[in-house]
């Protein structure tokens, strides 16, 4: 999933302090799972803002809506009838949802309520960690199912670097060395010989470097 983290309330207040009609718009997908932008977080943010405006003596209306998704037209259409009432929308979706809202509702200011962080997993409640950087050319078959691009601080394809110590990365003692994990996994799969194959220079044109990307599937287009 896409993992996000809540923005500090002060930052959100700074954006909306002069507004009169605000919609807090949650998303029922990834940001709900990572407890940053689902229905519950929409309620918490709305309450915090109401308290702020009350304290400031301002009459500001704050409504709460949580959509199934903010990255699909059909769900975003659900607010078409009401969007014009608002002079600001705070979207608690990931950056994708915020942008899709902005594209669709051109004249309504949309503000992000979360910081979108990475694609990752729930290791346990309250701990989400990165697994994929969307390089567009998956190499996991060669690395035993563990990604050196997302798990190594230097995205080294022929690691580990000389800074790997007792299974930890040189930049943080709490961080696993991605290459140590790869080696352990190759060992468990009885494939340690694969370690000595040199991974060739990677074509990064399918990642961010190649410019904004798209996937086109004519076979499923209507």
């Amino acid at each position, binding site marked *: 999933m896409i993992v996000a983290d809540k923005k500090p309330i002060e930052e959100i207040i700074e954006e909306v302090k002069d507004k009169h009609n605000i919609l807090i718009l949650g998303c029922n997908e990834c940001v709900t799972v990572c407890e940053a932008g689902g229905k519950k977080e929409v309620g918490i943010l709305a309450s915090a803002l109401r308290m702020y405006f009350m304290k400031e003596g301002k009459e500001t209306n704050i409504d709460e809506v949580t959509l199934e998704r903010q990255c699909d037209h059909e769900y975003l259409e659900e607010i078409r009838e009401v969007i014009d009432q608002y002079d600001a929308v705070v979207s608690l979706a990931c950056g994708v949802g915020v942008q899709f809202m902005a594209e669709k509702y051109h004249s309504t200011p949309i503000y992000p309520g979360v910081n979108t962080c990475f694609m990752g997993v729930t290791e346990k409640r309250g701990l989400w960690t990165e697994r994929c950087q969307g390089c567009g050319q998956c190499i996991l078959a060669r690395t035993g199912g563990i990604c050196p691009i997302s798990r190594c601080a*230097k995205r080294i394809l*022929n690691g580990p670097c000389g800074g790997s*110590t007792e299974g930890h990365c*040189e930049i943080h003692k709490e961080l696993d060395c991605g290459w140590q994990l790869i080696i352990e996994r190759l060992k468990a799969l009885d494939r340690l010989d694969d370690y000595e194959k040199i991974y060739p220079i990677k074509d990064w044109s399918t990642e961010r470097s190649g410019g904004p990307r798209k996937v086109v599937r004519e076979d499923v287009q209507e």
Partner: protein
Amino acid sequence: MKVNTPSKLEKILAAGHLAVTSECGPPRGSDPEVINKKANLIKDHVDAINITDNQTSVTRLCSLAACIRLKLMGLEPVLQMVTRDRNRIALQSDILGAASFDIHNILCLSGDHQSFGDCPQGQNVHDIDSMQLIQTVRHMRDEGKFLGGDDIERPPQMFVGAAANPFADPFEIRVPRLAKKVAAGVEFIQTQCIYNLDKFELWMKMAGDRGLHEKVNILAGLTPFKSAGMARYMKNRVPGMDVPEEVVKRMADTPKEKQPEEGIKICIESIERLKEVEGVRGFHIMAIEWEEKVPEIVEAAGLYPRPNVD
């Protein structure tokens, strides 16, 4: 023995001499005198001088310019180049720039993470890794081509080196990793600073069992301690460094004013012992901000005078 490049370092190794290299860190400013002064301290006692490339990710005068300074002094530079700060365009371009000044040695590194340096908020590049940089230089030199496939007019003639850290984890892949670098085309290795000689000898033995010591010139890396504090710092704070407790203790048990002398002594003793290790072809003495001690170490270790191969 056949040589592939005009590198003096390569010629010395090919002739069967124990090579001696050292390094100079460029200044955090643009004063060329800093480099000239450091180089003058060591030039008669070493065969080649590495210039570090923004080591520990602290911004400094660039390695290439400092290497050109050495070249202008008639010395033999080893251009250190990290993959952290440059993509494949910049790397190839700088290699050609170095080649235009007839810089004949390169050390291919990934570089410390930027979080250690003065720009922790900066991006890192890592378009290619150190293994692939070895391949890149060899490709440019041997095929005379860019990575993109076009011909290079007057290809670089560089003796290609890399680092090896026998002490990083996991230990079991440290020799396979060396084998990988050899397969990538590396011709000389400068190791991480050696304090745990037993472990280094084990690594060399394992490399020797695979015949790797015949395929690559391994220069043992040494850094003399200036103080017990430095020994402790290296032991506890520098990633991938293996300083045995007894070495720290030996420094700590020495009166403070005698500690620099003791650090030099340990370094010389280490060289004497490592000379006997099969496959050690020379020494890389990294006297960090203590370059003036290199001549003393080289002389006391019986590595002076340096051979003349020109």
